[in-house]
C-alpha cells in the first residue's frame, strides 16, 4: 500500500491551511480594529466616513472601511454577523424595514423604540441622532411657493388639481409613500403621477415638466435649483433621523467609541447635510475631504 502512505503529506498541508483560514474568519473579535460599513449612496458614504474619521482622530483604534454595501438588508446582515461593527442607518428605515413595526411620527419616541428593540433582539445599540431628518421632502418650485405664499402641505393641497406630480418608483409603491400621503392630505391630482428616475425629478421640476415631486429632505440640489420643501404639518412621514448602529460587543470591547460618537450628536443640521451632499454630488469633491473640512470647521474635538 505504498500509494496510500504518500497521500497524507500533501493532503494534510492543504487541510491545515484550510482549517486555519476557517478559524481566522470565524473569530470576529479583531484586536484593535474596527470596521465601519455604509450603504452605496452619497449621504451614507459621507456619514460612514464621518464616523470613521471621528474614531481615527480620537482613539487608538485602527479603522477599516467597508463602504458601498448594497442596501439595508445587507448592512443589517453584516453587522449581525460581526463582519462590520458600525454603520449609519435611519430610524424610520430601521423601524419599518428591519423591525417591521408600524411607522410612528415622534422623533424621540421612534428613536427610543428602535434603540430598545435593537438592544433586545439583535445585541445592537444606537448611537445619538446626528441632527438631521432625511425624511421624504415634498418639493415645489421656489417661485411657486413665494407667489402662492405656500408653506405647508395642507395649504398646497388646494392647488393639487392644477398640478402634475412626479415620484420615484419606490415612493409610489411603499405603504408609507404616496398612498398614505394622498389620503392624509386629500391630494387629488388631475392626472396620475408620473414615475421617474430619482435623479431626474429635480430637473423635471425646475423645467416645468412637473409641479410637485417627492425627494429627500437633504438632497443637495434643493438649494441649488431653488426648490422649496413643503412642511409636513400633519406629520405624515415618519422620522428618518440618521443614527450609527453599533454592535454591543464592540462597545463592550472598546467603550471609548461610545463617548467619541456621542460628540457627533446633533451636529449636522438638514442644511449642513444638504451642503455636504451637494459638495460631493454637485461639485464632485472627494468624500474624505468634505468630511475632514466639516470636522475641522465644527471643531468636533473633545
Amino acid at each position, binding site marked *: 500500500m505504498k500509494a496510500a502512505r504518500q497521500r497524507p503529506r500533501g493532503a494534510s498541508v492543504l487541510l491545515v491551511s484550510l482549517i486555519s483560514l476557517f478559524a*481566522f*474568519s*470565524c473569530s470576529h473579535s479583531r484586536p484593535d480594529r474596527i470596521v465601519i460599513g455604509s450603504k452605496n449612496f452619497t449621504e451614507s458614504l459621507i456619514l460612514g466616513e464621518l464616523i470613521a474619521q471621528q474614531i481615527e482622530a480620537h482613539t487608538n483604534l485602527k479603522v*477599516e472601511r467597508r463602504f*458601498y*454595501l448594497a442596501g439595508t*438588508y*445587507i448592512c443589517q446582515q453584516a453587522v449581525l454577523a460581526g463582519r462590520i461593527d458600525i454603520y449609519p442607518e435611519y430610524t424610520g428605515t430601521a423601524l419599518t424595514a428591519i423591525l417591521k413595526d408600524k411607522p410612528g411620527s415622534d422623533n424621540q419616541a421612534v428613536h427610543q423604540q428602535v434603540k430598545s428593540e435593537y438592544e433586545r433582539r439583535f445585541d445592537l445599540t444606537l448611537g445619538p441622532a446626528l441632527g438631521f431628518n432625511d425624511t421624504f421632502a415634498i418639493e415645489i418650485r421656489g417661485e411657486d411657493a413665494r407667489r402662492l405664499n405656500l408653506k405647508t402641505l395642507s395649504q398646497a393641497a388646494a392647488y393639487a388639481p392644477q398640478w402634475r406630480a412626479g415620484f420615484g418608483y419606490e415612493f409610489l409603491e411603499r405603504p408609507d409613500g404616496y398612498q398614505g400621503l394622498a389620503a392624509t392630505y386629500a391630494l387629488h391630482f388631475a392626472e396620475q403621477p408620473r414615475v421617474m428616475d430619482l435623479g431626474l425629478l429635480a430637473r423635471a421640476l425646475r423645467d416645468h415638466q412637473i409641479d410637485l415631486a417627492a425627494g429627500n429632505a437633504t438632497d443637495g440640489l434643493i438649494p441649488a435649483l431653488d426648490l422649496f420643501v413643503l412642511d409636513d404639518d400633519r406629520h405624515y412621514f415618519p422620522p428618518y433621523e440618521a443614527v450609527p448602529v453599533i454592535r454591543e460587543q464592540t462597545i463592550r470591547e472598546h467603550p471609548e467609541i461610545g463617548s467619541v460618537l456621542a460628540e457627533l450628536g446633533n451636529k449636522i443640521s438638514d442644511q449642513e447635510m444638504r451642503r455636504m451632499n451637494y459638495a460631493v454630488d454637485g461639485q464632485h469633491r472627494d468624500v474624505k475631504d468634505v468630511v475632514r473640512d466639516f470636522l475641522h470647521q465644527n471643531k468636533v474635538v473633545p
Partner: protein
Amino acid sequence: MNVFRFILQNRSQVLELTGEHLWLVGLSTLFATLIGIPLGIVIAHWPRLNKPVLAGANIIQTVPSLALFGFLLPVPWLGDRADRLAILALTLYALLPIIRNTYTGIRGVDPAVMEAGRGMGLTESQLLLQVELPLAISVILSGVRTAIVISVGLATIAAAIGAGGLGEFIFRGLAMVDNRVILAGAVPAAMLALLADIGVGWLERRLQPR
C-alpha cells in the same frame, strides 16, 4: 499589476473575505456530501428511486441562484441570517453533482466483482464499504470537485443578499465603479476555484482503482 498591489495593501480585508467565502463553500459542500453520498448509495441500490431523486436534484439546479436566494429570504429562521440562507442554497446546488456521481460510480463497479463478492459471503454492508465505495471513490470525488467549483462561483452571488464573501468586493466595486475592488474579489475567487479543482483532481487520480 495594479490589482495585486491593491490586494496586498488591503490584504487583511481580502483574507477576511476569503475566509468568509471558504466558510460558505466549505460548510455547504460538507452538508451536501453528508446528504448526497448516502442518497446516491440508496438510489444505486434501489433503482426505482433513481428517477424521482435525480429529477428533484435536477429541478433545484435549474432555479436561477439569485431567484432561489430571493425565494428563501422571507422564510422565518433562514431569512434572519443571510449566511444561513446562503449555506442552505449552496448545499442544495451542490447536491446534484454529488448524488449523480455517487450513483454512477457505484453502478459502474464491475458486476462480476459484485457477484463474486456476494457469492463469497460478504454482507451487503461489507460489500458497500470494502468493495463498492473504494472502487467508486474516484468518480464520487469528481462529483465533489464539480460541486466545490460551482459553489465557489455561486457564493460570490450570495454577497448580493448580504452573506459576505469575496462577492462583496465585486458588488462594492461595481457600486464604486472601481475595477481594482472588483478584481480584488474576482481574482481570489477564481484562484480558489482553480486550487480546489487541482487539489481534488489530484486526490481523484491518487485514489483511482487500477
